[in-house]
């Protein structure tokens, strides 16, 4: 028998050996697919979205680990009693057969099933392939880790012990060794990132292949244990040392032909910048710093355009002799707060512009503010000393566009990049409507800059009456079912959105059966136009009040500036400033 024939023979024998386990695996995939296609639906059909997600993850991960381990351990590579060791089976053929079997069962099969499922749910082919591929990457990571552990263990009990040891080693590496390295070599420490899932996945899969090949060809167990440990260290170190994902989308400046930028200027809103205390804990050490947030107002551009800051470098220059100069980059933290005066924030105007000549209504409007600086607490100890606060902002210019329009009827469906959506039902209720929408979303797989801050929105539009209602995401009841999370950081979710629209939902527009009959569902999404850089300066900024303590009183304390005198109206916090102002769809 030639080598390929031998590999196929060995694979076939493994299928027969594990046929019961594989049948269960097939059932797991099918049940997961069926549940996902059906969607979480009413709470009566599924216990809860949490148990749904966790249940699927545990079963899928667990079964992948158990069967992969048994696949490897059934032809043990340890000891001297394995049957295959005294048969004319080339080790390379056995290695190939085992890796191919594991890849086909636990990587290729989920890729095909998930890809087909996403296609069936209306996703575009590219997105379906991407979604399937991401699940495949995640499965490949699990399989690789399991293979490394199964090579040097003889049963599931030992595998569990090896797994615990591996997790412990990586935890010690992450929690103890890396901080020590960071302390000893600050240059290395400063370059550590939070981790790159894709780099980690590639490193683990590559490491698994190397360890498996080495072990099958040499059968040197302790060497393989050392190699596997090194591979896990390397994967962890690589992912931490890999440059973090860019904050700024890889797009160029806004072309003048698209948007003349010379007239665009930036100012803070009448609401003054505010200062929040931010507490961080690093090990046993706790530090407090100050986060400065501003609401930005841009002028000198068409109403359909809005700007979203993505990076800031802030300087706090105290003019008094011997006082502090602080300069540093900032982590931009978008926040939001409700508008109490119906003022139209930038995104709102852009959405309105995209929808055309309609009266756009909504229960609430939201104003976005951005944390432009996070300063060490020491800076604020120089209280009362006037300073110049200057922040250089890099922003992405966006314009909302209508991505999809479908009649507001049951079974109307549409797709957009990373999204497939179908209206399940539109039910007229007493003076309102209840819309059930099933969505399949490929989160995080979209190119950076595709969407300003994930702010896609659904709008009900009635062209005949020139009216539209922006549906706020808080008014949807959402249920998620995730099929891919761990390795890639990308989630594919299936959501059911239900919106009940009582009369008070839209304050100016009355929604009734006749209105709904003429209505259409519109998806609006922001499209990036390019980057724009502007500076924002506040002269004579000085700290009022008490600083350096974590207390409710210190929260929302203002900076004083000529633009925003000390007696300003405190901003209204809604849900905390750390909440991303995610939009209606994704």
């Amino acid at each position, binding site marked *: 028998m030639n080598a390929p024939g031998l590999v196929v023979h060995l694979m076939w024998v493994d299928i027969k050996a594990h046929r019961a386990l594989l049948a269960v695996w097939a059932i797991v995939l099918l049940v997961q697919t069926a549940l996902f296609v059906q969607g979480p639906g009413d709470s009566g059909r599924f216990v809860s979205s949490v148990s749904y997600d966790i249940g699927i993850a545990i079963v899928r991960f667990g079964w992948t680990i158990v069967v992969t381990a048994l696949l490897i351990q059934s032809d043990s590579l340890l000891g001297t*009693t394995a049957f295959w060791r005294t048969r004319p089976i080339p080790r390379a053929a056995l290695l190939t057969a085992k890796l191919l079997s594991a890849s086909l069962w636990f990587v290729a099969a989920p890729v095909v099933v998930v890809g087909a499922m996403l296609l069936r749910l209306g996703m575009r082919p590219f997105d379906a392939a991407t979604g399937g591929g991401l699940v495949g990457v995640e499965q490949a990571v699990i399989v690789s880790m399991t293979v490394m552990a199964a090579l040097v263990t003889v049963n599931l009990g030992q595998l569990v012990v090896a797994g615990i040891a591996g997790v412990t080693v990586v935890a010690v590496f992450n929690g103890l060794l890396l901080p020590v390295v960071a302390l000893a070599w600050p240059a290395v420490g400063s370059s550590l990132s939070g981790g790159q899932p894709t780099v980690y996945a590639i490193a683990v899969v590559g490491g698994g292949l190397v360890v498996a090949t080495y072990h099958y060809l040499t059968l040197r167990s302790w060497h393989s244990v050392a190699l596997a440990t090194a591979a896990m260290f390397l994967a962890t170190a690589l992912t931490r040392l890999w440059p973090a994902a860019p904050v700024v989308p890889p797009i160029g400046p806004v072309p003048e032909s698209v948007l003349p930028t010379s007239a665009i200027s930036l100012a803070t809103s009448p609401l003054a910048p505010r200062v929040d205390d931010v507490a961080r804990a690093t090990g046993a050490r706790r530090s407090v710093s100050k986060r400065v947030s501003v609401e930005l107002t841009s002028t000198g551009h068409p109403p359909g355009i809005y700007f979203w800051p993505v990076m800031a470098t802030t300087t706090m220059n105290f003019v008094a002799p011997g006082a502090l100069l602080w300069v540093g980059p900032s982590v931009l933290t978008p926040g939001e707060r409700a508008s109490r005066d119906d003022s139209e924030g930038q995104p709102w105007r852009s959405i309105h512009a995209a929808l055309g000549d309609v009266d756009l209504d909504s229960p609430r409007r939201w104003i976005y503010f951005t944390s432009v600086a996070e300063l060490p607490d020491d800076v604020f100890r120089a209280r009362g000393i006037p300073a110049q606060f200057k922040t250089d902002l890099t922003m992405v210019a966006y314009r909302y566009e209508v991505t999809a329009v479908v009649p507001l009827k049951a079974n109307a469906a549409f797709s957009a990049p990373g999204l497939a959506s179908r209206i399940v039902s539109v039910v007229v209720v007493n003076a309102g409507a209840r819309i059930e929408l099933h969505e399949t979303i490929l989160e995080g797989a979209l190119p950076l800059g595709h969407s300003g801050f994930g702010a896609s929105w659904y709008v009900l539009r009635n062209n005949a009456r020139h009216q539209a209602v922006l549906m706020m995401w808080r008014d949807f009841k959402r249920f998620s079912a995730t099929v891919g999370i761990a390795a890639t950081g990308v989630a594919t979710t299936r959501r059911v959105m239900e919106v009940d629209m009582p009369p008070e939902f839209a304050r100016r527009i009355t929604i009734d059966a006749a209105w709904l009959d003429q209505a259409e569902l519109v998806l609006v999404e922001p499209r990036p136009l390019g980057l724009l850089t502007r500076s924002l300066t506040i002269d004579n900024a000085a700290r009022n009040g008490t600083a350096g303590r974590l207390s409710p009183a210190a929260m929302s304390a203002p900076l004083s500036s000529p633009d925003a005198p000390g007696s300003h109206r405190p901003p209204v916090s809604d849900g905390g400033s750390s909440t991303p102002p995610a939009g209606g769809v994704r």
Partner: protein
Amino acid sequence: MQYAIETEHLSRRFGRTDAVSDLSLNVPAGCVFALVGPNGAGKTTTIKTLMNLLPPTSGRASVLGTDSRKLGPSALRRIGYVSENQDLPAWMTVADMMAYCAPFYPTWDTAFAAALARQLGVPLDKPIKRCSRGTRMKAALLVSLAYRPELLVMDEPFGGLDALVREEFSSGILEAVGGERPWTVFVSSHDIDEVERLADWVGTINEGRLVFAEPVSSLIGRFRQVDVVVSEAATLPGGLPVSWLLPEISGRAIRFVDTAYAESDLGPRVRALFPLAVDISATPMSLRQIFITLARTFRGQENRA
């Protein structure tokens, strides 16, 4: 003479223990060679080293002309291996195991395999995990004979088998190896009766060292139980030949095992040490008696050590 197995100063150490030490052994092609020795003597380690399941610590071994450390698929196609320590694929039926093994061997003889299965009385459709120990050993033998290997290596194949199964097992081996082209069989065993029945060469190993290896006929020819009657009660003198094992005396009767028996010089050698000898008789020994003698001698040496 061609040798199926050759070892030169082969040693295998586990920590501080020499499982096999300086073992030099030649197994002629075409013979049935039995390696015997007490528990822990190093028989299994020797076989595992020969089969490349363990690398030697020092020395070398070659099997069918291939260095044991390089024993790979091409050599294994010519070698059958049966061991009580082998993990058979328990989920398979015997028929599954035959179907599993057949593609590995170009010389697999399906008809011969079927005949062997009938002869050994192996139930083809029974999962191996539900088979008795004897049936498992017969199944292992079946898939190790069906491709007519040039060398059959067996490690303690008779252990724990009842008399009937042992008979079937031995008959199967004898039937298979007795064809036109004689196979070489290398078997380690405690079971002296089966060894006596099967082997035409025998080697003895103790504490990892080879004591001797020679044709069974030669072994039986040079071992004699010698009984000497002296005219007066005496004590055992010092300086007895090392070839005289287990010497004992009771009144006027002296008994020992001569391992270098030669009819012509027995009398003079005995009388040189026992001048009052009035009767000297030498009784041929069975293989079983020889190995019991050797085992008792080894134990005595261990106790003295």
